[in-house]
Each structure stands twice: as structure tokens, then as C-alpha cells.
């Protein structure tokens, strides 16, 4: 079990447009992701999720279980396309895979413009994305995304596994974030 109270307390101290790196263990990563989305969704009008670890259908059922308002969520699903796992709609687009960094960046940029209201972005697995991408290219991608978020004054969270992210990569990403929370 993760310490949800700690997460809530830490987040409550931060401005809404803060970017937070959540570090957790492999077994708690999904729980941390759900808890973060729940907290952010309650505080924001809309959320954009970059999912590299779970398919859209699975996320939707988990959001329902965790009482997260699905209507507020837009999902960039980076894993289902090759399995032909559904039709695109107003709440999801299916990208080729987690190595389509240009496409992910473009789609995120477009959604930042299109989606109204106070919004957040959550990238659900830095580590899964690193499986598909070279670290230096991925670092540039993260820099690109976080710069776009800063320019649009959009806050968000990045979920990373504490024990497996390489040190250089972690340092690169950590320096771009406002806060690191270990769960």
C-alpha cells in the first residue's frame, strides 16, 4: 500500500501548475498512478494521460473502480494500436507505440490547445517508455514535453520506478520537475 495521505499532503503544498516526479516500486506503480490521477482529477477540470503501461479499456474500468470521472480524462494510448483494441473517440487516441515520440509530442501539444479549463498531464510510466527509446532521445522528448507544459502553465505527474531508472536519466528528468515524491 502506498501512503496516499503523504501524497495528498505533498501535493496540497504545491501550486496547480507544478510538475511532480513520483518515484515508487514496481508493485506499487499502478496504485500510485491511480491515486495521483484521483487527486489531480478532483482538483482539475480535465486530465491528459499518456499511457505506456495499460491499454485504454483497462484504464477506463480502473477509473470507474476508483471513482475517477472518466469524462474528464483524455488518454493517449501507446500500447493498444497493434492489438486493434478499439475505435478512437473524443476520449482516446491510439498511437503506434511508445517509440512514436514525435507523434506523442504532437498529440499532447494538440490536446493542450484543444482541451479547455484547468488541466493536468500524467505520464504513467517513464520506465516503459525507456524500453522503447534511447535514453538521450527520451531525455530530449521529456524536455520538449515539460517545456510545452510550462509554457501552457499545465501541471502534471511523471511516474517512475525507483529501482530501475538509470541514474543519469533520473537526474535529467528530476532537474526539470518541481518536486520529487517517493511513495
Amino acid at each position, binding site marked *: 500500500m502506498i501512503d496516499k495521505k503523504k501524497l495528498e499532503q505533498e501535493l496540497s503544498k504545491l501550486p496547480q501548475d507544478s510538475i511532480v516526479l513520483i518515484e515508487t516500486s514496481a508493485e506499487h506503480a499502478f496504485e500510485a498512478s491511480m491515486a495521483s490521477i484521483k487527486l489531480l482529477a478532483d482538483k482539475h477540470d480535465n486530465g491528459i494521460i499518456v499511457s505506456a503501461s495499460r491499454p485504454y479499456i483497462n484504464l477506463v474500468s480502473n477509473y470507474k473502480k476508483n471513482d475517477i470521472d472518466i469524462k474528464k480524462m483524455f488518454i493517449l494510448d501507446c500500447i493498444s494500436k497493434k492489438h486493434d483494441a478499439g475505435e478512437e473517440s473524443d476520449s482516446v487516441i491510439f498511437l503506434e*507505440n511508445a*517509440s512514436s*515520440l514525435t507523434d506523442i509530442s504532437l498529440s499532447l501539444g494538440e490536446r493542450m490547445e484543444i482541451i479547455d479549463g484547468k488541466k493536468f498531464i500524467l505520464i504513467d510510466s517513464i520506465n516503459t517508455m525507456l524500453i522503447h527509446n534511447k535514453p538521450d*532521445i527520451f531525455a530530449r522528448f521529456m524536455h520538449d514535453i515539460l517545456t510545452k507544459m510550462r509554457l501552457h502553465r499545465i501541471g502534471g505527474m511523471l511516474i517512475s520506478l525507483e529501482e530501475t531508472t538509470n541514474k543519469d536519466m533520473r537526474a535529467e528528468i528530476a532537474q526539470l520537475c518541481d518536486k520529487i515524491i517517493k511513495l
Partner: protein
Amino acid sequence: MIQLGSITNIYNRHYYQPIYKYHINVFPKIHLKEKHIKRKEVVVNRFPQLDTDNGIDKKRYVNLAEKKVKKLKKFVTTGIPGFDDLFKQGIPKGSAVLIAGGAGSGKTNFCLQLVAHHAAHGKKCFFMGFEESEERLISHMEDFGWDPQKLIDSGNLKIKRFLTSEIYYYNKKSGDTIEAMMTKEADPLIMELEPLAIADDIGFKPDFIVLDSLTSVSSTFKGKEQSYRFYVERLFRYFEKIGSTTFLTTETEQTPKVYSPTGVEEFLADGVIVFYNFRKENIRESAIEVLKMRGVKHKRKIVAMKITDNGIKVYPDQDVFGAMEM
């Protein structure tokens, strides 16, 4: 679209600031945009402060606006979303531009989209296809929803397929032709002849010509490279003479280092636009670059591009991560 921001910047930098310096209290914030300078009366109406009573020469502004409009008319845009933002003003009118890229990278679609845009805006366009049939090219246009038949019926668009055996020198006076590949480059007779007969073939002087592709033309000259080089040189001179803005496609590798069949074409061309198809794991990322464009400032960057259901869309500010792995 022409970049409004850049026009405003040029205007401000060269003309506006010196006046601004002396009359800062009279009109502290004026931003002249394209729509204002295109209609000189708007310039005056929009900025009532531009009055001789205040010591500002109204005529000077109007003259400058007219000069600016004249300058704008010397450039053409493509109408391809995002692409024109790669230029400060556009592509100089009358340029011969190479469109280089690998198979399936979007070269032909780019050219079809360009002629569809201009034909829909009343310009005369001629698409010379050496690879695909008229029917297939029209079908591509229909797939993107550009209504080619309407453009053809309006007389603004002509699509014609050529066989590579139809590469000839043309005698405008007699109407005779000589197969280009059969000639020697040093033959003085050729100097009198045209490498194509565009205006005679289609009955109008085109504003835009597409030749798809130069690679097919070059294949006709297999084993006669010198003759091809000579022919291509004559071809570029011919396009320059007739004054149309010309786009010539060339087939290259997916991540090209050479942009034309012999390398000579890219020196002869006024501009080179390169289409990339970067492989990243098991996917490909499309990208585009203005490698060269004589006489204009342009972005020197490989940027993202997508072929959407409505045609090509360019993202002038989007990095291409696949390109960084090369």
C-alpha cells in the same frame, strides 16, 4: 498563408521604428499587419493618429504599404498547412524547386495538394506525370477530398501523363521534335530547340508546373549521362524563361544525402525541399526540410509532417525525434 508576424517585423524594423522614435507619445503601439498594408485605406482608417496634424506623413505610410504589397506579390505560398510558416515570405515566384524524398514519403501528394490549392484560387496549374496515370492522380486527389474534376472543368488544372519516350527537344517554329536521348549534348542544333512544349500542349501559360518525376526522365537517358545533364540544364533554363513556378520531384533514399539523380539538379534548382521517412524501431516518422531556397529566409530545421485524411500537414515547430537517432 504568409507569415503575418514576419511581415510586421520587417515593417517595424525598417520603416516603423525610425518614425516611432520621434513620435513615441503620439502613437505608442502600432502593429501593421498584412491585411492592413494590403488595403492602404485601412492603414489610414485604422490608425487615425497617422495624421499630418500630428507631424506624421500619411503619404509615407501609404507608399510604404504599396511597396510592401508589391514585394509580397513576388512570392508564392503552397497552401499546405504549416509548410508556408517555414518561410519568412514564401517561395520566390518563378523558382524551380526540387521535391526530393524516398518512395511513399509524400512528394506527389505534396505537389497534388499544391496544384489543387492554387487551381481552386484561380491559378493555372499543369501537372506533368511521368509515373502515374491521370486517373490514378485524380483518384489520389479525390481521396483527399480536393474535387479535381471541378478544378479540371474550370480550366485551371491540367493533369497529363507523359511517357518517358516522349522526352524530346521541340522546334517551336516547325513543330518538329527530336528524341532527347538520341542527341549529342554538343549538337549546336539543340541550342535552338526547347526541351518541352508546355504552353503549346495545354493551351495556357501555367502559373505552376509540376514535373513528377525527374528520376523517370533521367531513366530515359540510361547510359547517356552527359546528354541527360545537358537536357536537365536546358530544362531548368526553359522553366526560368517561361516564368512559371516549377516543382520537380526526385526519388531518393528514405534518409537522403543526395537529392537528385545526378546531383547536378540540386545546384541548378532554386530550391530543394526534402521529405524524410525516418525509421524508429518498427515505425516510421515523416519529416520535411527546406534545404535550400534562393533569395529567401527560411527555417533551417527538419520538422514533423503528417499525411492526414485531408492532405499533408506540416508542424513547423515540432522536433522529429526519429531524426535525432540518425
